[in-house]
């Protein structure tokens, strides 16, 4: 085990996997990963300019031709990635009847709404909801360095396209040394067991839930916290079991409340349990991220919002 930052965990996964398989190629936009290039050569490690479509397209192409490919992409202009993902990358296995597939991983360097002043196009959160609507694309969100390494290795080894959303602010964590350490895509993680209520969140909202836990436990609440880690394809059964036990589900999303990634989870649980439980969602309101700090502070579902929500639901 070694304590490392999420950035180091990402690099550890990249160096390890590109060393394991000489066919794996890597590309970034607006920079070159010099460490990888020094290790694996300029042919395998490309640095594109500010051409999101290009880096995405080339990684698609290399993967379809048989070289698993990885790209680090930006959270901005998601439509530039979405286009080819939607048209080709996510559908090629299906439309070809399995004759071809596209083993690539896109690592989206996410922003969060936590740093004010970025404004609408730069402070985008919640794109996982968009991406997860498409059949044929896996979407995962690590929540600390341990999951960054585990999910990234799983994604690189996955024969199908994976979007890994790497939100800014991931905590450091102990990461196993085993090169075959993977976190399987699709299994939700019970962060903490409890009996009064199930609170479910992906990163970065998860971090607010974890902050809220301190105050909630001091007030005597027994909160079960679930981090699904995978947006799609997700095994919902443990989540249904949890809510069947607690009778209450609160989801917290830093994406938009309307059609955010938690919406699908809640719909699944509600279908399973119906009136056996009560259900509420917290999410970013139906507006773009503003620039001014007062406005972003007001809009974000912070830990204090989570505390209030739990208290209301359990009153």
């Amino acid at each position, binding site marked *: 085990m070694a304590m490392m930052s999420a950035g180091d965990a990402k690099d550890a996964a990249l160096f390890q996997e590109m060393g394991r398989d000489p*066919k794996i*190629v890597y590309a970034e936009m607006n920079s070159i990963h010099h460490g990888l290039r020094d290790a694996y050569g300029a*042919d*395998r490690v*490309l640095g*594109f*300019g500010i*051409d999101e*479509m*290009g880096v*995405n*397209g*080339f*990684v*698609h*192409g*290399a*993967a*379809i*031709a*048989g*070289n698993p*490919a990885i790209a680090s992409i930006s959270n901005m202009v998601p439509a530039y990635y979405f286009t*080819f993902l939607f*048209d*080709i990358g996510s559908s*090629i*296995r*299906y*439309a*070809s*009847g*399995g*004759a*071809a*597939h596209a083993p690539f991983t896109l690592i989206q360097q996410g922003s969060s709404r936590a740093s004010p002043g970025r404004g609408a196009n730069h402070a985008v959160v919640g794109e996982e909801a968009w991406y997860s609507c498409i*059949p*044929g694309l*896996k979407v995962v969100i690590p929540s600390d360095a341990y999951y960054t390494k585990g999910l990234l290795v799983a994604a690189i080894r996955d*024969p*199908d396209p994976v979007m890994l959303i790497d939100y800014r602010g991931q905590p450091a964590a102990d990461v196993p040394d085993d090169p075959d350490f993977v976190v399987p895509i699709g299994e939700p993680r019970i962060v903490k067991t409890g009996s009064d209520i199930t609170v479910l969140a992906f990163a970065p909202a998860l971090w607010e839930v974890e902050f809220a836990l301190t105050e909630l436990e001091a007030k005597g609440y027994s909160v079960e916290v679930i981090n699904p880690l995978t947006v799609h*394809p997700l095994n*919902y*059964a443990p*989540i*249904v079991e949890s809510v069947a036990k607690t009778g209450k589900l609160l989801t917290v999303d830093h994406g938009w409340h309307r059609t955010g990634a938690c919406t699908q989870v809640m719909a*699944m*649980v509600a*279908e*399973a349990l119906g009136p056996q439980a009560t259900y509420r969602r917290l999410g970013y309101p139906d507006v773009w991220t503003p620039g001014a700090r007062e406005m972003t502070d007001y809009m974000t579902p912070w830990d204090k919002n989570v505390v209030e929500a739990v208290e209301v639901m359990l009153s």
Partner: protein
Amino acid sequence: MDGRKPVTPEDDVAVPEDVTGAESRPEGRDERRTLGMSRRSFLAGAVGLAAGAVLFGGQHGFAHTTYRAYERLDNLTDEQLVEMYRRMLTTRWTEVALKNMFLAGHDDLYRPYIFGIGQEGVGTGVGMTLRNDLDWVFATHRPGHTFLGRGIDPKKLVAENFFRMAGYTHGHGNTMHMIDAENHTGSFSIVGASLYPGAGAGWAAKVNKTGGVGVSVFGDGATHSAYLASTLQWVSTFNIPWIGILENNGWGSGMRTEQVNPPDIESLAQRAGGYGVPFEVVDGMDVLKVYAAAKRAVDRARAGEGPTLIECKCARFMAHSGTSGIEAGDAFVAWDDPMRSAREMRAWAARDPLPKHRQVLIGLGVLTEEQADEMVLAAKRQGEEAIALALESPHTQPEDGMRQVFADYVAAPTQFIRHRAWS
């Protein structure tokens, strides 16, 4: 190799317009004499006519392309020359067989096929320069001449039209979504979608050090695409072994190419020069000229000298998709094309790559007329056989569509009330 002065088809005349009659001439009909001359001297005369046009027209680039194309004959074996004809015949007569099925009607033909008749010279000229076991080619929504120009057996392509298990996609896609993994050939339905995959395949070949190339086939309707600008930028910057085959058939679906491009540009390919990508413009109705240009490009790419864009001026003999304006039987030209006049169709039919190449083979003494006729009959039989086999192939199972989203994954049947998607 620098960008060559582009050629317009009107200058590159090998057959005067009044040589052929008003109707298409199906292969196999006896036509030994043309304008009262034997084919051998006709061929020489045609080249002479072209040279004459050069002298009067003063376009040196054109003569260079013509003569270099026919110079290539020295580097081609008789077998290769015959194989070119065979592949074009297979393409032509497989598609005619499909055309006739569509006209006759069949319950399983519920999606029109997008015919490549007329563009066989491009598909075969390019296909003959490539290794099927190594080089990826990504085709357009008009895939037939690209697939069959690589010598691929037509059975799976034909069965795909009927959505049968013997088709490439086993009912999961259609003829615009076929991937032939063994022969490294694929098609996409989205305009310009072949560009990144071809470039990425070139990148992969470079990384794998196989000497392979990646080829993107796209139409004039894709030249406005941001995908092309981006692809040219990066194949040039990264020196990728990529060949772009721009099939300029004068039409982007319902719009003429001139309507959607800047006036007074000499070619569509010239924009490649802006990215430092060498380009050529060739007569796509002449398989030998396409071959010559493609061979130059492939040799360059394999030698690590980078990408090339080749604009092939050609025409499709049928409507954008489907069978509008064409008769049943051996007809392969849509005289009643909804967008083009019969006169325009006649002018292009006069430049049909198949009789042109047949003339070369016979003029060179590689084939006799009888042998050529036999090849035509064999191609017709092959097309009809492919149809028969397709009709015998089983249909798909309805539940099959729940698979192939991911490896080892079956989608939940959420269309039924009795499912449980959360377990």
